[in-house]
């Protein structure tokens, strides 16, 4: 059966696809129909496992979804209204749940929503999606309370795990590396908004709070040394147009642009080729890498970075040490998008010199 994502695209099938997915959900989770009300993932509003924020979230989620269920969105892919974006932002992990309602977005339209473990690690979304999706399905029969759009405390970074993902055959939490080219503007929106606290399962992963705190002070000290790079790792985010998720690299683990570039090639090779198959196929990987290298050296993709002043510059113009000192984040852009950068970068370095 087609995942709701596809089913809803642009043709407003509404409840039909919902119900089919409902049955899928049922069979998937082997839930006893008689117990459909139960939310064993503890994400119903009567669960005490998660924080009140979380249960609040589920409620909001359901409420939001209810509204969504009745809306038909027939716009072109990517043409989401700002309101929706805001909702998406405010929505918790139900970004996943919302997925079925959103039309497919092409990869060029910002970061794809992928089904990647990176997003869901330490995050309840995988489950909440499933369960809430299931719950949503059932609750769409109208047992919910007033659909007030209460804003959720703390914006949840809405890169979530789609449980009904592009791969129709995936059963439970698809964590595949391969991804379609669906996407939303979620990451883009997030990029422009200050990252808020992410929804997480209470007490998961099971890391002692003592250890959590130690590491937090470690990475804070390393990341936020302003200007001057301190010792230790210097993590910056790397995003790529069309990739479903960000990565982080430690700039200090490289000593030259070439190293950084090849590392990024390796990291992002699967995305440029579309389907990233099994990681365990070395032949394929090297093919992807060389292909990506070609792509990168061709003008298909360029590596850019955002500096301290917030400007996007081409990577490679300044000496490496200066680069490390001023780079806040990296972005692999399509060559066509980066054309406007070059002159500015040159100017900037001119004014610097």
């Amino acid at each position, binding site marked *: 059966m087609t995942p709701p994502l596809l089913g809803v695209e642009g043709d407003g099938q509404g409840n039909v696809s919902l119900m089919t997915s409902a049955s899928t959900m049922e069979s998937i989770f082997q839930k006893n129909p008689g117990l459909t009300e*139960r939310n*064993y*993932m*503890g994400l119903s*509003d*009567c*669960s*005490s*496992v*998660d924080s*009140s924020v979380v249960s609040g979230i589920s409620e909001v989620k359901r409420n939001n979804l209810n509204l969504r269920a009745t809306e038909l969105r027939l716009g072109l892919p990517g043409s989401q209204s700002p309101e929706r974006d805001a909702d998406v932002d405010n929505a918790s992990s139900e970004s996943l749940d919302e997925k079925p309602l959103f039309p497919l977005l092409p990869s060029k339209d910002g970061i794809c929503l992928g089904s*990647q*473990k*990176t*997003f*869901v*690690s*330490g*995050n*309840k979304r*995988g*489950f909440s999606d499933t369960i809430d999706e299931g719950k949503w399905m059932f609750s769409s029969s109208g047992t919910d309370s007033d659909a007030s759009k209460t804003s959720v405390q703390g914006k949840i970074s809405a*890169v979530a*795990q789609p449980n009904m993902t592009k791969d129709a055959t995936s*059963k*439970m*939490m*698809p*964590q595949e*590396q391969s991804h379609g080219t669906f996407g939303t503007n979620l990451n883009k929106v997030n990029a422009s908004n200050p990252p808020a606290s*992410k929804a*997480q*399962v*209470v*007490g*998961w*992963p*099971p*890391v*002692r*709070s*003592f*250890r*959590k705190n*130690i*590491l937090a002070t*470690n*990475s804070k000290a390393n990341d936020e040394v302003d200007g001057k790079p301190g*010792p*230790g*790792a210097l*993590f910056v*985010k790397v995003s790529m147009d069309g990739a479903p*998720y*960000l*990565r*982080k690299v*430690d700039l200090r683990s490289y000593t030259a642009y070439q190293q950084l570039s090849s590392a990024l090639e390796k990291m992002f090779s699967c995305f440029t080729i579309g389907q990233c198959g*099994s*990681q365990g196929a070395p032949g394929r990987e090297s093919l992807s890498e060389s292909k990506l290298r070609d792509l990168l050296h061709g003008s298909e993709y360029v590596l850019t970075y955002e500096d301290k002043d917030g400007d996007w510059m081409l990577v490679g113009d300044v000496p490496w040490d200066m680069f490390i000192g001023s780079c806040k984040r990296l972005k692999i852009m399509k060559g066509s998008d980066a054309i406007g950068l070059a002159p500015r970068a040159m100017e900037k370095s001119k004014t610097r010199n």
Partner: protein
Amino acid sequence: MMLLQPSMDPNRKRAKSVDRVDSVDSGSESFESTRKCGFPDEVLERVLSLIDSHKDRSSVSLVCKDWYNAERWSRRDVFIGNCYSVSPEIVAARFPRVRSVTLKGKPRFSDFNLVPEDWGADVHPWLSVFSTAYPFLEELRLKRMAVTDESLEFLATNFHGFKALSLLSCDGFSTDGLKAIATHCKNLTELDIQENGIDDLGGHWLSCFPESLTSLEVLNFASLNSEVSFDALEKLVSRCKSLRVLKVNRNVSLDQLQKLLLHCPLLMELGTGTFMQELISGPVTEFKTMFSNCKNLVTLSGLWDATPLYLPVIYPACASLTFLNLSYATLRSDELANLLAHCKSLRRLWLLDTVGDKGLEAVGSCCPLLEELRVFPADPFDQEIFLGVTESGFVSVSHGCPKLRYVLYFCRQMTNAAVATIARNCPDFTHFRLCIMNPGQPDYLTKEPMDDAFGSVVKTCTKLQRLAISGLLTDRTFEYIGKYAKNLETLSVAFAGSSDLGMESVLKGCMKLRKLEIRDCPFGNAALLSGLTKYESMRSLWMSACNVTMNGCRALAKEKPRLNVEVMRDEEGSDDSQAHKVYVYRSVAGPRRDAPPFVLTL
């Protein structure tokens, strides 16, 4: 022990299963009565006093009344795994001559914030009873107990021979409490403060050790944040000639550490402070000899902020190290590889996942004697970092370290095939704790559930005592566990299973199960009640965010009056029929008298 017929009935004559000619008037409980021939009780006591293991001692005490008595009089160490399973009065009545007490309190999931504050496990009632029953108490080891400054002060002032205090994962006290200990415990040999929820009001406590205190052997304040007076610390270390364990906190600098090490060459376990210097006062070569005098060092930890520049300082000490704790050092693979090349004797290694799979390859090639590996996530909550370790790192280690028995591994991807390989390579696992950080994640290659992974572990590793499972798991995992994990004592489950059958399989099959902790699983009343006959042989059961209802819990409580069935209500508490957090444990002390309002004992 040759007795075949344990009998506690005071009126029955014992069968002649011992080398005793006379029958015993078991009505007399006096341990002073000697027999005409055979064992005087004193001899029996003497013999039994050589038995250290708690389990053995429990067995001994079940043999017969005499042995029960002899054992109880000779017991010096009491271990209480669940402070609510027994009361301090009962303990004091049974064991009159105790010198050392170990107490564990809250359920383990309290470490992960699943247990509200003020849940209980207050140590004070124990201290009050002990102050009269065991005025000569020497050692107190607490884990997950609630401890206040008042309690610490009470301890320090009421137990005059008190020697050793160990607080692990406790909360409720501040450094003021430590001041009391430092000030009043004249014979202190051990102060071990680890990972507690402590109110750190400053480092003055350390200066409270009197000049006359020279008995310290163990000092661990690595997890405290405030700076202590280095002068006081240095003086303390130099006058305590028997110091064998010293773990300082991050505020102690490298050159300060160097000075300290000059005073304690006999040190066996060292926890360093920060392992780098911002302002280099002298060349790094200054530190090169720092460790060359530490011939007895077997354990090294701390190493905060260690960088490639300073790490080589520890190389001279590495050859004899058996335990290296690098879980606070964000090392990369090459840094780790260089370090491990010197550490041939390692038995235990704790790492951060910043070392990556390449770092783990180095572990596999450098540490053939490795028995324990723990890999912690550097950034467990940052979803964007796709770093860390994968299945291939684990497999590399398993190839190179066939003696592995204890593993704790946090990762973001795993496959069934990898785990099968690992189990094959390391069949001696006793503790296998695998945490795939994304809940419910399947085998990332095949998309299958991870059932076969844990199936292969339990089938191959017959000595398995402790198991923590994760990933996408159906009831099949639990069937495997129930069928094969016959030595399993502790099982931790999260986000797993498909139906009650899962939990039932485990309860039915795992004969030696003692601790079962479950969160976010679809197990309901049927599963809960299937363990009716089992819970009394277990220490405890924890179930949170499952499908258990109040009625199910009531049914359990009704059937088993010697179990405490406690339900913690959610603050939001909308649905009264769901039992959100259930904690079931056996107890001879009856229901808790100090339960807070949100804990309901059924």
